[in-house]
């Protein structure tokens, strides 16, 4: 089976790097976006198998990205795992309401992260 591609959307370059190392080690292909607008553009052009989406983003926050992805049928099918440093209680419900497949709180345990990605991709 072909290598699955994950779009990492996070404005924190350090975390993008860290996550990419982690995901590549687990045999994922990784592409990046650093803000909301480019996240949607990358999703269009790269057609990732999964999007790992931070919520606190410049140029359209994570919720906005979720809305826009949801509005485009071709993109709406791509599962999104939200990963955020925000207060989980409020953000989780809203993210799920906008179609997120999973919700992770930063900093996330790697085992939990990888397990979640596997589960979402399998579903």
């Amino acid at each position, binding site marked *: 089976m072909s290598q699955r591609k994950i779009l990492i959307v996070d404005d924190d370059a350090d*975390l993008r790097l860290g996550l990419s190392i982690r995901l590549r080690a687990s045999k994922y292909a990784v592409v990046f976006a650093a803000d909301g607008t480019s996240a949607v553009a990358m999703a269009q052009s790269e057609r990732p198998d999964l999007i790992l989406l931070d919520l606190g983003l410049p140029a359209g926050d994570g919720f906005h990205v979720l809305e826009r992805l949801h509005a485009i049928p071709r993109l709406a099918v791509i599962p999104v795992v939200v990963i955020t*440093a925000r207060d989980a209680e409020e953000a989780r419900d809203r993210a799920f309401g906008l179609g997120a497949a999973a919700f992770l709180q930063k900093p996330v345990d790697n085992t939990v992260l990888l397990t979640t990605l596997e589960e979402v991709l399998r579903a």
Partner: protein
Amino acid sequence: VTTGKRPVILVVEDNEVTRKMIRVALEGGGYSVLEAGEGRAAIDLASRHRLDLVIQDLRLPDMEGTALVVRLRNLPGSAEIPILALSGLHSEEGRARGLYADFSDPLQRKLLALNLGAAGFQVVPAGDGAAAIEEAKRSRPDAVVSDVLMPGMDGFRLCAALRQETALAEVPVVLVSASYVEEADRQLARSMGADALLTRTPDSRGVVDTLRDVLLRGHAGRADPPADATGAPYAERVLLQLDRQLQLGHGLARRLALREAQLAFLSATAEVTARSDDETQLVRQLLERGLDAAGLSHGGVYLAEPDGTLALRAEVGGFGAGGVALKSLPDGRRLVRAAFTADEPLVIQRDQTDSAAVFAASNLVSAVLTAIVSEGSRLGVLWMASEHREIGEDGGVFAKVAALQMGAALALSRAFTRVNAAEAKYRAIFEHASEGIFRTDREGRVVTANPACAGLLGWESADVLTQQAPDLGSLFADPLQAAEFMRRLYDRGSVTAFEARLHGRSGHARWAIVSARALLDGEGDTTGYEGVLVDLSERKRADELRELEAARRQELELKSRFVSQMSHEIRSPLAVIHQFVSILADGLAGDLTPDQRQCLDIVGRNVSQLRGLVDNLLESARLESSRLTVTPGSMDLGAQILQAVEACRPAARAERILLTVSLDPALPAVHADPQRVTQVVANLLDNALKFTPAGGTVTVHVAASETGSVQVDVADNGTGIPLDEQEHIFEHLYQGTGAAQLSRRGLGIGLALCRELIVRQGGRLWVQSEPGSGSTFSFTLPTAGAIASRAATGDQR
């Protein structure tokens, strides 16, 4: 000698009602009336006025009636004024004296004298026959006018006696009588030497004409010597007249008694009405006075409710033998009802066949029943009865007057009662109002105030306040507010809802709403001001508390938002650190030496701890700003605890700590929020593992405890907590003596949060610890059953 003016009568009577009655009666009869309420005033009037008659009460407030008679008699020129004594009539003694008082004669004599004077004659009065002879001998009158019926020597004998006197034998004598009016009497008069016997008329016109006539002609003289005053015709006429007088006198006495009784009852009514505040008492007293005035021993009053049922019964003596009530006698009710609807008094006698039934069981012989009426509405029935005599028309008239008077008295009394009740009601409102109510005089000084007003202004009582009568303006703490208020009050006449700080007496100021308006008299002039104070202090204090609470909430909200923001800011770099540590640790960036790995483990552990700290911080902030939600329901506590324990097993194993659980197999379901319970248990376990050295034990024990709750104990055999720190560990961000150690291990926030969560679910959380031998953290949660039964019994705890 006379002025031709109307006769002047002085009425001396202390009861004003009676006095007015007499005045009205006399003025109606053409007399001019002077009034005195007491003896001294009477003497004063008599000394200044020419009086023709005095009618006086025998009982006066300042002197005895008899003493007044003496004093009046001794006044210069007053010796001859006839005095009619009128008793108060309440006592038998007074009645007797009143009846003995010579009513008709002096009055008639005086009237005659007045009329003769008016006709141009000079009149010399004399009291009786003997006095007339003496006076005639002295003053040698041109004619003698005499009444026939006189005590001692009567007119006929006076006439005969005058004829015996040589000097007076030719003096014309005119006899006047209301009694000797027959032809036989006129013959007897002529035989006695009289020139004429005239029937008395009020205007004395006949006397005047006859006098003029005889004086013009001179004494007619006579053929025969005067008849013997002891002769048969004289004796016959006098005996006849005596008999007639007895009858006449009886009728007169009766009429007089009736008038007297009416007057007595009137004055008694006024007296009783003013004194009595109880209707039962009033009715009884009126009844007694009425019976007293009528000279009757038995009587009663039945008052009806508006629906016609009996409202009140008062009886004196009862109608039946042995004091049996009228209504209880055969036919009694019918009679009362008949009288109630009748317009005229109902007079019944024992010997009447239609009233035989009611008299059958009674000692009474005669009775009168009449409706008590006031302003057209029938209030009840008055009855009066006699054991001895027949009650006639007079009795009926008296009963009717008495019933009318009673009706008026009752109406008056009821009106008084209503007014009193209304007054009491308004006074109570005034006294107990929570608003301050005040009234000022024209100058704006507070002269009336209720207790609330005094209390609001810090005065010890309303009396003290009104005695000091402070200026309305001085009540304001702020002179500018005072000026503004007074200006508005003067300009517009009223001020509504003026919010001001009032200057209390003891220096304390109070916020109040002040409203006031000017009081105007008929001319539109201000006579004062009245107003209301509503205490605003409580409201202000509540407002302040609300503001404080809102500020506190805002502060908490800010803090919570700040903490939330901070957590976010900390978490992001933490996530980066965590990721790279794990990348290094997992060898994704190349192999590590054992030393490097050890270093990385330490970094990793502290990152985890920092993460926990941030989580707790966030929860804690949420808790304070009440954003942390607890949604309890019936849950399986055992399952949640096992789950939490299992989650800790790897950590325990790593530290070589023995982690055991003992669960009561028959554990009831508890009423709690599973997520929050797990949070608490995880937190307590986390702490226990941290503070227990390697090789130690941590035990979780869950069992039903006190009735209606389940207790969870998390015990360790670790370092323990000093006694003086045991409560502080539940404070937020506690920094105790072991602060470095504790905070490094993240204890402070966790326990405060745990306790708050348990309390919010209706339980308790506490610690028992001994330094060196470990700690036991325990909490309770209510069972689902206990909550259900509490809800069922409505216990809102």
